[in-house]
């Protein structure tokens, strides 16, 4: 990675808490990446347009509201419609383990729960980048197995 990666960190839906998203954004910044933070309460469409216009390589979605099972796949669907197949999507927040396989199936490559060390997120970023085909619409079933 010669150049910093551009990573959008987004808060979809009606969810007013962004401490987690800010912690992740800070860890990514401190690892030398360029993080574009969307702010709170964005629609799936707004998030995808931000990823498109900012030419982001990664998209991190944070949800604490319980609406992840609806909102995260919606974002992935809009990404594919916009031709952004190669964007690598990961998620985090309060996301029960039993909900995660459905998210992996729509192309989300990692889901991180509370207590995940930020170093693990950086390891995921590196590995997903190196794979070269971990985008949301790309042909792989690979996903990261997170510790929390």
């Amino acid at each position, binding site marked *: 990675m*010669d*150049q*910093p990666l*551009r990573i959008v960190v987004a808060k979809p839906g009606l969810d007013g808490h962004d401490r987690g998203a800010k912690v992740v*954004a*800070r860890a*990514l*910044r*401190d*690892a*030398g*990446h*360029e*993080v*574009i*933070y*969307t*702010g709170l309460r*964005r629609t799936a469409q*707004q998030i995808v*347009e*931000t990823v*498109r*216009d*900012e*030419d982001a390589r990664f998209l991190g979605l944070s949800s604490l509201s319980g609406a992840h099972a609806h909102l995260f796949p919606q974002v992935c669907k809009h990404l594919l419609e*916009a*031709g*952004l197949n190669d964007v690598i999507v990961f998620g985090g927040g309060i996301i029960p383990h039993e909900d995660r396989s459905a998210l992996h199936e729509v192309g989300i490559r990692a889901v991180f729960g509370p207590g995940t060390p930020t170093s693990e997120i950086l390891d995921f970023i590196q590995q997903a980048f190196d794979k070269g085909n971990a985008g949301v619409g790309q042909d792989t079933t690979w996903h990261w197995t997170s510790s929390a």
Partner: protein
Amino acid sequence: MSEEIPLALNGDRRAIARVLSGLENGTITVEQALAGRQSDPSSTSWSTMAITGAPGVGKSVLVDALMTVWATNGTKVALLAVDPSSPRTGGALLGDRVRMSSVDNPAIKELVYVRSIATRSSSGSVPLIVEDMAAFLLVCGWEKVLIETVGSGQAELRCAAVADRIVVVEGPARGDGIQAEKAGLLELADIVLVNKADLDGAERHAGELKESFGLGEQQAPEVLLTSALHGSGVVEAAQALMGLESSGRALRARMRERLLGQHERRLIQHPSYNALLDALCEGTLDIRTALARIDDEADE
């Protein structure tokens, strides 16, 4: 990357975003991107405008309000919003979008493009690559390109190198009348907007600025009051900015900043730049030797 260029020229926003990244990363040159095209030299007077001023005076909210007015009137307007890169890690948190509503407004969003940019290795409040990125947006059909600089102080003039017009945003309670007397950025302003006019001290500060400009012999730039938060003065400011003439005061400073900036860019792109930095950190090299090596290799 080159296959993206024709798509971008047709207005494909994903392609535009990718070409801008190519320019920023140096994988594509501005000559390749423009391919001899020039932006339409239409009747309007300027193409690029820098919005600069101290951190926290309300540049982002004001820019958003201005873009909303212009786009509502049918003008295609792009924003290159610059935030600082960490001098330690090279990373950046680009947060200007948090304050942007125009880009999400269904009525006008097709006419608005916002791109966040980190300063990366360059010094100053604007990396020079912004000039190339703006030129590309102009040939892609954007009529006006705004450049929001890093929040900056009195002596930061690099924005003069990249923009046709300079707007300095001030806020209330920005010091006494002597601050307005000091030399620097304000001298290059083509117009001054005193934002947060809803707060105490804004009118007084605007008065001090006008008085200060009045002491000089050159033509004084206009000083307008705005409240981006409440919307007062924004339509008037948008109108004044759209027809803004160059004060002409900045020509020499503009050329100096261009020369300095391009010189710096050449230094940063020097193949030994990082190795020299490493050696300086380790103490195995002193500044004079480092400079001599750069000169030597430049001569070869």
